[in-house]
């Protein structure tokens, strides 16, 4: 399955929705290199720490990563001496149908909103998280790309154990 069929310069709602669903599938199938390619060069993955957080710079976040940091994570997951991934974690997304919140064709920017349940598991432990994913998407060279993926966990300020993969 490919997530990335070519799209017109102006994507349809259906294409935006399919993209978001396909993105989660790449994570669940651990196709992390393909997943990384979905981000624009200046794309970001943001997981706020605060409820309704607006500032990623002077307020702590769980993750606020550019492509370099995401690449480090993806490479690390494959490493021979990555002991926290021996054995590897697995994860599972259940998405509600994404809603298209805004379409700014002039700015080439589209925002979707997706409630989801995310399960991460390793060894005997399985943890369920509930979250909302907000994707800011754009069309680059005929393909949809992620400018920002923001994941707000419903209990973002709780004390968590390891979260090793991507929501």
């Amino acid at each position, binding site marked *: 399955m490919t997530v990335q069929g070519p799209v017109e310069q102006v994507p349809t709602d259906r294409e935006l929705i399919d993209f978001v669903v396909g993105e989660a599938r790449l994570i669940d199938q651990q196709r992390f290199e393909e997943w990384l390619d979905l981000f624009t060069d200046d794309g970001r993955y943001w*997981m706020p*720490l*605060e409820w309704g957080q607006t500032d990623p*710079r*002077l*307020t*702590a*976040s*769980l*993750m*606020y990563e*550019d492509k*370099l*940091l995401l*690449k*480090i*994570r993806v*490479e*690390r997951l494959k*490493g021979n*001496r*990555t*002991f*926290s*991934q021996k054995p590897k974690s697995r994860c599972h997304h259940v998405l509600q149908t994404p809603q298209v919140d805004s379409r700014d064709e002039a700015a080439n920017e589209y925002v979707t909103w997706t409630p989801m349940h995310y399960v991460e598991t390793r060894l005997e432990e399985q943890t369920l998280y509930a979250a909302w994913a907000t994707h800011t998407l754009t069309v680059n060279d005929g393909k949809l790309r992620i400018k920002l993926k923001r994941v707000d966990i419903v209990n973002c*300020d*709780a*004390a*968590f*154990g*390891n*979260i*090793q993969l991507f929501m």
Partner: protein
Amino acid sequence: MSRYHGNVEAVRKLVRETEVHRDVYIDEEVFRLEMEHLFANTWVYVGHDSQVPNVGDYFGTTVGTQPVLMVRHSDNTVKVLHNRCPHKGTRITTESCGNAGKFFRCPYHAWTFRTDGSLLAIPLRKGYENTGLEQSHAGKGMSAVRHARNYRGFVFAKLNDGGPDFEMFFGASLSSLDNMVDRSPMGKLEVAGGVLRYMHNCNWKMLVENQTDTCHPMVAHESSAGTAIEVWKNAPAGAKKPMAVEIYAPFMAPYEFFENMGIRVWPNGHGHTGVHHSIHSDYSAVPGYFEKMVSAYGEARAKAILDENRHNTIYFPNLMVKGPIQLIRVFKPIAANKTLVESWTFRLVDAPDMLLERTLVYNRLINAPTSVVGHDDVEMYERAQEGLHVDANQWVNVQRLYDPVEQADVTAETNGTTEWQMRNQFRAWSKFMTLSM
């Protein structure tokens, strides 16, 4: 079966000169005794006074496993109160922090208490006339922790009357807190950015020991810091090294770097890595900061403050301070095999925002539940928590660079890969565990 309760000799035997018995990590009875004795006989970090800037502001936390409230009293001092209503035991505050106004009001029966804990009013008070309420526990109000101390904003409490006073307990180790505060041109810190809370399935002492364990970074963090270095090698020539890579890379420094950084031990279990340099020494300068420091302190003093690059300072039992990046970690014991790690960050008042930004990047990359460096460490702690159940060997070794003439409770500077600081902690552990038995 009670093996350690009331048995001073059995508790002492858990700590030998160069090894400690596994029960200090895995035994629930030892854990309960730690809460009853160790965390009551020592000065334990409660919070920072910038969390309660205004009269009536409170912050709820724990000392060991005891719920307490830190509150700004009407005379502007900071009090530490036991967080229960003296009446039925109800926790007084609803939120973890907030403002009580002029008094605390229990949400159950509306008993009210001044911000120093003293009883203010009880509805239908005449029902207590001639009952001797004044002599009861309830009549005394919310009890205050008698031994609380605000040191340059950092509030500590000691639950028991016994044990050393504040100055005696911390002594020269306070210099690490001093250096962190002095890094503000105004000599003032503010808690800022939010706290990262990370749950660990291991004993709290594993985290404390890890802070001065300089033989693990290049091994356990090869997966994270090593990968960061490898990925950065593919960056275009001349690209500016990002903050994140500056933060990750020193974790892969060779043994020699850590040997030469030095470790200093102080009496009562305190100590620090990074006498001469640390992983924080080579961060890029932040524009405008040095100039502010010079105009506040003069050039010589500003240089002296900024040349101090202590790595991790342990304030025994469960606080770690990183002065050069204004970050502290509190290792909160929950059970023998469960620890909540809180990582707090500070703003240097009147310094450029970029310093706080870097501190937050560090905290996120190293101390968050989503941190790859954190994942490396947790894996080791949890494997140890499991492995310690092997009966064939029941001892943990802390022998590295041990010298038989080594004394307890001294100040000394030594090789940066020594386990002297771990031994120092366990000598203090033994002393404060048995002090009130």
